[in-house]
């Protein structure tokens, strides 16, 4: 018996598929970046259509300039956690700016979005008195936050307020605190949650609502504040979590809230206290990107135009799409085998998308996840749509029975 035996079944399956197509979908190296939507991979220029760069801000001039200045002034790293020596004026300022942008009283910046969820959930809910209820399709960091918390965790059916309500009703009298966690837009299928209904059900049973807008921040709502802005319940969300790694094109995460007690997390949340804070460069880039999206709506408008174009084209091509139009456009494949080959075919045709296979995908489906960016040019999208057009033919021919 070795420590490694348990990996064998997955490794065997994965390596066989990888060797069959002659490329590793989970080990692609962008050898040279050519801008927000292009990269050189194995000497060939590829259109990047599997990122989270929704607003295309990775090369935003003001952010690049601010980042260079921050490194020169404040150094390359903070070498400490927020709780110790890792809080600079810029970290504080970004918390104030994020709170102001979203309209919450408080905000805490974490080192990543993963840690923000991990840190909020694990500190807020504790065994044995509290219970956490989570959407069944929640991101790994929500599941991991529950594990770290140790509190009893119950899943409700994806995007189903009724299923949440049933589970809240079943809870015993002894439960003290209840925390309900769900997301705005889901990253794999691009479907969106009934945020208003979920918040209402949570509050009806005296539970707190934690909403992760990782993929919807900057993308949904009149001012880009997420699905809760679109649903007009932003002020009712108890804990709003987000990341800098998608629309803000940096690294870091945050939790915002109107509860004054949010500040308690600063001395009780292990993922806040025991990891180094984001570097000055990360903070400067996120701050500049936040300024940009607060003052300029044009990226979001372009993003949705691009999303509509691709979604309509794929619908016409007859693809089995996972959700109505959003910036994440996922195509359902028949099998893992077919998904690997289709992914490889797109690479051959100059397009990188994300391959997602079970475990870890909802309903054990294999999908090709495409994400649209506002930075995609007409030519980029032509290449994408042409590649998918050729793929559609391939799927009804050669790859039909894979």
């Amino acid at each position, binding site marked *: 018996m070795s420590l490694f035996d348990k990996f064998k079944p997955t490794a065997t399956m994965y390596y066989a598929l990888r060797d069959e197509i002659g490329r590793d979908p989970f080990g692609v190296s962008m050898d040279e970046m050519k801008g927000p939507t292009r990269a050189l991979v194995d000497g060939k220029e590829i259109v990047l259509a599997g990122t989270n760069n929704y607003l295309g801000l990775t090369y935003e001039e003001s952010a690049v300039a601010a980042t260079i200045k921050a490194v020169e002034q404040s150094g390359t790293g903070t070498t400490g956690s927020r709780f110790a020596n890792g809080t600079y004026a810029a970290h504080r300022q970004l918390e104030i700016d994020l709170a102001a942008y979203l309209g919450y009283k408080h905000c805490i910046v974490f080192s990543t979005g993963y840690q923000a969820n991990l840190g909020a959930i694990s500190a807020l809910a504790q065994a044995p008195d509290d219970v956490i209820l989570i959407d069944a399709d929640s991101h790994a960091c929500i*599941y991991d936050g529950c594990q770290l918390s140790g509190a009893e965790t*119950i*899943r409700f059916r994806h995007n189903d307020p009724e299923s949440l309500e049933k589970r809240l009703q079943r809870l015993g009298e002894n439960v003290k605190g209840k925390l309900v966690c769900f997301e705005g837009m889901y990253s794999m299928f691009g479907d969106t949650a009934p945020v208003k209904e979920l918040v209402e059900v949570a509050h009806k049973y005296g539970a707190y609502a934690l909403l992760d807008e990782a993929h919807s921040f900057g993308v949904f709502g009149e001012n880009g504040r997420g699905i809760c802005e679109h649903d007009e319940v932003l002020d009712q969300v108890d804990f709003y979590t987000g990341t800098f790694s998608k629309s803000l094109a940096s690294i870091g995460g945050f939790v915002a809230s109107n509860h004054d007690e949010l500040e308690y997390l600063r001395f009780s949340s292990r993922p806040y206290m025991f990891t180094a804070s984001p570097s000055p460069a990360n903070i400067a880039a996120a701050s500049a990107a936040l300024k940009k999206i607060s003052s300029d709506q044009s990226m979001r408008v372009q993003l949705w135009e691009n999303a509509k174009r691709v979604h309509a084209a794929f619908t016409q091509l007859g693809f089995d799409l996972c959700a109505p139009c959003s910036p994440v456009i996922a195509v359902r494949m028949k099998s893992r085998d077919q998904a690997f080959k289709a992914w490889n075919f797109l690479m051959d045709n100059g397009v990188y998308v994300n391959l997602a296979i079970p475990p870890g995908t909802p309903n054990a489906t294999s999908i090709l996840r495409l994400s649209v960016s506002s930075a995609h040019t007409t030519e980029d999208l032509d290449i994408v749509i042409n590649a998918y057009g050729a793929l559609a033919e391939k799927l009804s021919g050669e790859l039909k029975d894979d």
Partner: protein
Amino acid sequence: MSSIQEDDDLVFRKICSLIEPLNDKGVKLTRETDLIADLEIDSVAVLDVVMDIEDNYDISIPVNTISEIKTIGELVDAIHAIKKEQT
């Protein structure tokens, strides 16, 4: 005792009927069958089967409990324990 035995059987049969569609290899289902090792059902799919069981019996089975369950028999026992507690 006999009524528990009877009920036990019903829960066992219900679980088998929910798992059967995922039993691609046609393994004979017993109390000792290991969901992941024998049936090669992935851990996420196990959670989805459990969701059906929850709705069927109107109980909530915490993720913490599921992660400790390996065999069909353990799942049956857990459901009995929770049914007693929650109803």
